[in-house]
């Protein structure tokens, strides 16, 4: 070879794969990521608006922890998000991308509201609540089950399918409200507000406590179901490799359908909680995007129900905090700034996974360090 090629430089950075990291190290990286994200996010705001980082952090914390009432709202919101995240998790573990939790919860809520609307206070509170619950479970299960059926039978794309079902559910809700509210205001005022039939009671004087308790029970059940039951095992095998599942004789179609129906039924229960425990009414925005946020929570927690508690608390804290930033009149901040900070934090958390899995080497390597990590 005659042509001489100039010796180019060694690449500035090159990335190598790490061995499995000890758990505390990986959590340390994640915590550092959150702190770094807070610093970057607040510094960013500081530069743009002149509001000091301390003020921002303080406002965000006050949003969730400022008063006892705020703490309860924070816990309630986290619980609802957690519940929906748990509902999508069995499907996700099976690599069935259920993006239709929003619609499944909403249709569950609609089923409950329908029961309340037509039953009124004819039956006792407990019976009404149980009928509502059953209706919600069935509605949620059907809403998800349709997508599951098509997936199992003809291998349709479940992401699109479940996503589209969201809009159908929303339109159905709009239709029902239009039918039920003769004035045309499209606002359904809380049903049975005098007798409180079909309302979950307050426990220890706390309106939200029962909601939170129910979600915590679901968390434990889901943890046990996924980890210790035969069903949970089948879900993992189908999710990891359909070929292996077939090889050992699992009926893959049956498992897909069953799991998706369980996922939808749980969404239905969450819809019931929205109606019986919180709103006693319905609007198209009842779920408020939690059906989508839940996807992120489930992923952040790597489909582990107990980590999901932490993840939903964090996400809720960010959501409420960014809301508090936008609505604090003394700061005079644009309402988008809260979202920007939230975005930065989530980006850092997801990005930190890269540093857990890979190691970045710079051109001038330190041999001692390389040896230490090897």
């Amino acid at each position: 070879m005659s042509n001489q090629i100039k010796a180019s430089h060694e690449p500035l950075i090159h990335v190598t794969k790490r061995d499995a990291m000890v758990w505390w190290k990986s959590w340390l990286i994640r915590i550092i990521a959150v702190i770094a994200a807070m610093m970057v996010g607040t510094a960013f705001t500081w530069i743009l608006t002149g509001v000091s980082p301390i003020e921002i952090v303080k406002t965000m914390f006050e949003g969730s922890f400022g008063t006892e009432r705020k703490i309860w709202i924070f816990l309630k919101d986290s619980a609802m998000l957690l519940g929906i995240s748990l509902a999508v998790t069995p499907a996700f573990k099976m690599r069935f991308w259920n993006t239709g939790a929003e619609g499944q919860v909403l249709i569950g809520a609609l089923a409950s509201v329908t029961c309340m609307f037509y039953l009124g206070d004819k039956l006792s509170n407990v019976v009404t609540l149980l009928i509502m619950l059953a209706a919600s479970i069935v509605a949620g299960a059907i809403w998800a089950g349709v997508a599951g059926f098509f997936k199992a039978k003809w291998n349709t794309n479940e992401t699109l399918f479940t996503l589209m079902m969201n809009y159908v559910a929303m339109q159905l809700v709009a239709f029902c409200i239009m039918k039920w509210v003769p004035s045309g205001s499209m606002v359904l005022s809380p049903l049975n507000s005098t007798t409180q039939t079909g309302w979950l009671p307050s426990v220890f004087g706390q309106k939200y406590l029962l909601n939170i308790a129910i979600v915590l029970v679901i968390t434990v059940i889901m943890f046990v179901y996924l980890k210790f039951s035969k069903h949970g095992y089948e879900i993992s095998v189908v999710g990891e490799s359909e070929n292996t599942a077939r090889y050992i004789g699992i009926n893959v179609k049956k498992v897909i359908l069953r799991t998706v129906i369980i996922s939808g039924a749980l969404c239905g229960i969450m819809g019931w909680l929205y109606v019986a425990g919180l709103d006693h009414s319905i609007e198209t925005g009842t779920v408020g995007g939690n059906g989508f946020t839940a996807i992120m929570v489930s992923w952040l927690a790597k489909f582990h129900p107990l980590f999901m508690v932490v993840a939903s608390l964090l996400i809720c804290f960010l959501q409420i905090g960014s809301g508090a930033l936008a609505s604090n009149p003394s700061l005079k901040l644009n309402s988008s700034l809260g979202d920007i900070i939230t975005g930065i934090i989530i980006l850092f958390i997801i990005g930190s996974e890269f540093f857990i899995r890979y190691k970045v080497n710079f051109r001038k390597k330190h041999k001692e360090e390389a040896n230490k990590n090897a």
Partner: protein
Amino acid sequence: MKKIAIELKNITKRFGAVTANRDVCLTVYNGEILSLLGENGSGKTTLMNMIAGIYYPDEGSIFINGNEAIISSPKDSFKYGIGMIHQHFKLVNVFSATENIILGLDDGSSFDLEKSAKKVKEIADKYGFDIDPAKKIYEMSVSEKQTVEIIKDLYRGADILILDEPTAVLTPQESDKLFAVLRRMRDDGKAIIIITHKLHEVLSLSDRVSVLRKGEYIGTVNTAETNESELTEMMVGEKTALNIYRGEPKNSELRLSVKNISCKSREGVKLLDNVSFEAMSGEILGIAGIAGSGQRELLEAIAGLQSLDSGEITYYTPETNMEENLRDKTPMQIRELGVRLSFVPEDRLGMGLVGNMDIIDNMMLRSYSKGKGVFLQRKEPKDLAEKIIEQLKVVTPNANTPVRRLSGGNVQKVLVGREIAAAPTVLMAAYPVRGLDINASYAIYDLLNQQKESGVAVIFVGEDLDVLIELCDRIVVIGGGQITGTVDARCATKEEIGLLMTKSNGGAKE
């Protein structure tokens, strides 16, 4: 003295805690064929990938024609005149040979297919390749595709050619043809590196042999001055007996009969065409053939994973000799019939095991549904996992390690161990030693022999004809979905089987 084409100095490459190459030095001269010999997992391919620009070395340097070279992408490597033919071809199926060869080529000349085709033909004639430049890739056999890959590199002016296990997919006849071409290229002054773990190929083809073991450079010897046992010792690190034990079949009786089975793929291509054979208890039945000739479909049909268009599969229960029809039954139904059929599939981590699950959970795959109640029983699988780890000497930190973290040989031990633990009467194993080092391979042969002695009908799908001939009692040859012959392994030759492998008109399909 010949000129040095490429020189590696103290190359180190790590993947996490695993060191794939440590301080490797290697020299290749122009006009020679160098064999890079080593067991699976010894770092041969990693080392070559660093020359080809796929990986970048953590430490060390590469010299090409005496100048230090920084190869950080395949493009750089091509600049230095290096061409690598990977085990898995990278060709566009609907394009012709010429189109594939000039694809992505940016040499400043205008696009002229005819001129390119002529140049391809010239290269082919010069070295004695057999190629039709206008033929589409999907119409080609594996060996023709390989030819296209080699010419692709020559067309780009490669002076250093690296071939990764080039004979793995070829018949003995095709291998001989390839070797003739490679010798001609050597005489033309090119430097050729061939990665292999087959000793007889090393001895018949190469001028020098460099040996790697566990990522470290062991040494280089001249082929003329060495022999198989010396090379094995370098490769394995200890003296190893290379003979496979084969006992006489005892109390053979019919266990499984396959009659005239046929099936088609979704596109309507015949995968199995009128296949019939019988498997006897107490013998090892080999199935030989070019990769993708229907071996997988055949085993999956018996295991209840492939639906058939016609034919019968009958199982004869030991002692009672009761006949059970296995066709159109699911694996669950077959198990419920009391048929003890074990299957070690080709795709270990994608079918036989779940890579992300630990050894205990993988043991549970076969037994999880046993027992009443909705909860899993982890006690029995745990005991089984520990038994297998101990008896088969599986190297693992503990039974809770995900199997994907284990080395290939240990993964296979886990899988074979689980299948044997089910006390089978029929044991099917597809390429059970693929990717395993010599000691692990012999451990698997021993396990298969033990099963044979205890009266199991063993069906062994293999790719290495030498092994098939040494290990099996009878060999059924499959070609293009048809059985092209059955031979007695005790008196068959490799050439005879090689001819049978290509006998069918369909040829090999992907």
